């Protein structure tokens, strides 16, 4: 166990102040993240309104089974992340490490499924660009541009989300080292708390992406 006093940065008065500062900082960062994703959500809503039928048709081509599976995986990873933070808070060294590893595994499963989904898009020529080719699977031949816009946004939104997952997993992996060394104590566990907030945020983004991209307009 390391000395908690050594964790106090020189410019703070006490650990409480330091902890409050880092968690406020993390919340503020998440506000910027909301604005960051917000642009894409905003564009999605606008273009969905403009190409209603095409978006509904295009969303049918997404694999709802894989999407639902991934949603469950991600919610599971939120649970293991919360348990990792809790273990760090109460100073259980081994449990912290194990829950971090579990979270990494679940996050990687999510990304693996995403790779499967993306490669299916490539196979079916649903990736926007010169080779884009769209046939409405259910009846009406809808406008090609509208469907392409759906896939533009699909790749932009899930791609940005996946980048955030990759960054999250990388930080999880880095934090295993101090967790293994028993650096996190009931007095000092700021990095784990901040990472927990980040991970839950990334999950919540998916909780909005899944219905918007996969579910609404389905019949």
């Amino acid at each position, binding site marked *: 166990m390391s000395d908690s006093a050594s964790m106090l940065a020189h410019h703070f008065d006490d650990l409480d102040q330091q902890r409050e500062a880092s968690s*406020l900082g993390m919340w*503020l960062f998440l506000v910027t993240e909301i*604005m960051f994703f917000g642009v894409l959500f905003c564009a999605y809503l606008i273009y969905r309104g403009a190409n209603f039928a095409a978006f509904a048709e295009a969303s049918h081509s997404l694999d709802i089974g894989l999407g639902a599976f991934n949603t469950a995986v991600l919610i599971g990873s939120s649970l293991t992340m919360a348990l990792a933070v809790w273990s760090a808070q109460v100073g259980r060294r081994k449990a912290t490490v194990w829950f971090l590893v579990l979270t990494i595994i679940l996050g990687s499963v999510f990304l693996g499924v995403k790779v499967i989904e993306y490669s299916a898009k490539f196979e079916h020529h649903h990736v926007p660009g010169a080779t884009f080719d769209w046939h409405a699977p259910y009846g009406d031949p809808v406008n090609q541009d509208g469907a392409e816009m759906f896939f533009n946004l699909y790749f932009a939104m899930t791609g940005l989300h996946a980048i955030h997952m990759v960054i999250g997993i990388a930080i999880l992996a880095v934090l295993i080292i101090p967790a293994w060394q028993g650096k996190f104590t009931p007095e000092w566990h700021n990095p784990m708390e901040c990472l927990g907030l980040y991970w839950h945020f990334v999950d919540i983004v998916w909780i909005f992406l899944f219905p918007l991209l996969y579910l609404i307009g389905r019949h």
Partner: protein
Amino acid sequence: MSTHAAELGSNYLTNGFSLKSWLLTKDHKRIAILYMISITFFFILGGLFAFAVRLELLTPAGDLMEADTYNRMFTMHGVVMIFFFLIPSIPAVLGNFLVPLMVGAKDLAFPKINLASWYVYNLAGIITLGAIFMGGVDTGWTFYTPFSTTYSNSYVVLTVVGLFINGFSSIFTGLNFIVTIHRMRAPGLTWFRLPLFIWGHYATSLIIMLGTPVIAITLALLAAERSLHLGIFDPALGGDPILFQHLFWFYSHPAVYIMILPSMGVISEIISAFARQKVFGYHFVAFASIAIAILGFLVWGHHLFVSGQSVYAGLVFSVLSMLVGVPSAVKVFNWTATMFKGSISRETPMLYALGFIGLFTIGGLTGVMLATLGFDVHVHDTYFVVAHFHYIMVGGAIMGYLGGIHFWWPKMTGRLYPEFWSKLSAGLVFIGFNLTFFPQFVLGYLGMPRRYWSYPDEFQVLNVLSTAGATVLGVGYVMPLFYLTYSLAFGRAAGDNPWGAYGLEWETTSPPPTENFHHQPVVTGEAYDYPSLEAKSV
């Protein structure tokens, strides 16, 4: 008082002389100095581009450079000045130096992130400079699609990648300020005892946090569209180029307040110090900053009056835009009231503050004119708009920056600058500025469009005036470089508080020690309590 500093020996400047002690410093004061060096470089660069633009416009014919070169010149002038000078200038230099001092903290909340922000800024600068040296960019600083995504044959992607990265430095700084102001105030320093400089930076940081991510993702989408043919803004693929304008101005209009709110904070400090008065209506000035920050997010649509948005949207944006004039006017009136019956001394910082009030008032009033739908349709994309935003952004932000640099120079360096030269340069800046930009109001009203490299003969007289003014302005801007540098070696020792100003930053030594204060300061009085300061000194 200055012997006090000498006795204690070490201050933040003498605490290590190696290059490493500067490049790896986590001291907010040293980071402020590093920022000052980088920002000065970009200011000179942006100024040179501006001078090229003004030289081309000296004659009606496009005889100095090709139209294409001219497009690149004004674009790079805009990109460099806005993203690498105006937006970071006051927060990154004066804010970094003063926010912890003014709230009585030892440092900003996240010193490593603060240092990272300087590196990120420079990395972004190098990438953008790379784009410039490879041939530049010709889209205008607004990067409107579909020109920027499809037709322009300049280095758009490289430039926006630089700006995307630069956004992080902005966010890091804003995040640091908010957390520091919330969590690290000295005992007794309640919210309504904070200097108005802090309120200005708080409001600015809110805008940075809410706005910067929006421009970042917008520019990322632009780059993706240009390189990967994602069609978000491309009408040929079902996209909407107007969406780009909405998203762009959602950040870039509030960005004006990122430039102006810290400047207003500086002006409040200077005016109260040199009028030796409490700031009249302190609460109103503080809340006006927050009001400007909030309203600033509701007015972006006034950039789209002629884009084909609905008349009703235009109407709403017109009214909301005029509303920003209210808190702005509150500030101007309160500064004026602060000076009323004050004993005013006309030191250099005060000259800048007075200049600010004059220029900002002209800029603000023409802003209300432009917010008016019918008038805007007449002068849209003319030199009237160019003059307006230069009065606000240059007249506002740079006057505040220079005023602030002069005001706190003794605190930052422990030296006084030569009074005669500094007053002369302040005068040249004011005269040169008005000579440059006032004729542009007339030009625009008469119908000279912006961004053209040649113009009908009848506009020449006014353009010559403007270019002459730009030369005077340039001289005024360059002078501080010389006399401030001179003062570093030969300036008189300043003492801890050469202006007899009120505020925590003046209670520590000049230059301050690395830990800012020798003892934890405790605040017992209201901000700007000059009357009691005067009573004590009698």
